[in-house]
């Protein structure tokens, strides 16, 4: 009797825990970087230019920076002429990025067609950064995952190289 009661209820609870968030996500369309770009495309009737072989470039960036920069996504909208409401754009990006992303910087201009949004997402040791910048008729959308320790090591290495070069030229 107990087992008959327990098993169906546990299954029901599990279904609620798994299926409800999945249905909610499916209903709101694809999330993340691609979700944001797709939504901007359909909302503003604009076409995003995606950089060919970006996946390969991302891997190269990861190797070159010893894991400092990873998961690079870039989309560029050229000839972006649609009027943008800063609040609407912000809400749209927030909705699509989803849980865990926090807005760090928002710069919005009512007249100049300038909008900047920067979101961050802690990923353990790493930090995910999402940047959207609209400047005049060009909108750039970038997402990267950064490991500050690795990246700093690489940056310092080149800084020291520069200093050494300066000393040599003197």
């Amino acid at each position, binding site marked *: 009797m107990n087992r008959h009661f327990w098993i169906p209820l546990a299954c029901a609870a*599990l279904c609620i*825990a798994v299926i409800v968030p999945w249905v909610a996500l499916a209903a709101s369309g694809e999330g993340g970087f691609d979700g944001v770009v797709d939504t901007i495309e359909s909302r503003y009737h604009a076409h995003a230019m995606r950089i060919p072989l970006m996946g390969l470039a991302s891997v190269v960036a990861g190797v070159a920076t010893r894991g400092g920069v990873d998961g690079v996504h870039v989309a560029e909208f050229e000839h972006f002429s649609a009027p943008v409401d800063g*609040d609407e754009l912000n809400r749209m990006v927030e909705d699509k990025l989803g*849980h865990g992303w926090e807005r760090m910087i*928002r*710069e919005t201009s009512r007249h100049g067609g300038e909008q900047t949004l920067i979101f961050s997402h802690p990923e353990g040791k790493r930090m995910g950064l999402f940047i959207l910048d609209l400047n005049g008729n060009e909108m750039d959308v970038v997402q990267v995952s950064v490991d*500050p320790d690795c*990246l700093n090591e690489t940056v310092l290495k080149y800084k020291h190289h520069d200093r050494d070069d300066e000393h040599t030229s003197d």
Partner: protein
Amino acid sequence: MKHRIAAIILGTAALVAPVLAQPSPSPFPLPSPVEKELATRAANVTEVTLGKGMLDFAAKFMDKNDKDQAAVKQLIEGLDGIYVRDYEFDKEGQYSMDQLEQLRQAFGTPEWSPMVHEHESKSGESTDVMMKMVNGGPHGIFVLDAEPKELTIVLILGPIRMDQLSELKGLSGLGALGDIGKDKPGKDKASKDKPGEKANKGGDQ
């Protein structure tokens, strides 16, 4: 009976989990309706929200061998958050004294003490600086700088070393902090507000 209780707990957990998974509210204590109203009226809005995680992340990029960067690194590593709101308006009168008062009242708790209140009726500019004191040490600073066509709010939470505060002026929207470090807490507690000068600035709606 034991199983029934376990099943109820499991069911409740499944229902409550998505609610608990919602992001925690921002520690930025300004009244949200005022913020929204100001943002709606402003021609240009800049919002900077740097929580502890982001500040720790930013600190990692600072070179501890560079004297200036080391000072900033030391300062921001201990902070809980930096929040900046800057609203630029096309014309004067886009915000009211009442809205300014609501912003000040958000820090009307006993732990916040006013350090500076300056109001110039001629230019219509006013500056408020409030300090959060914990165990006799500064643990937060709030700056409200109001000009006829611009309103800047800076809030820094966490233990602050006043002598290092001016190092942050290079950060977006924190230029107003350049001179604050020169004022030691407790030293400049006198209100600079002159009687009869509380005229409406920015123009009441």
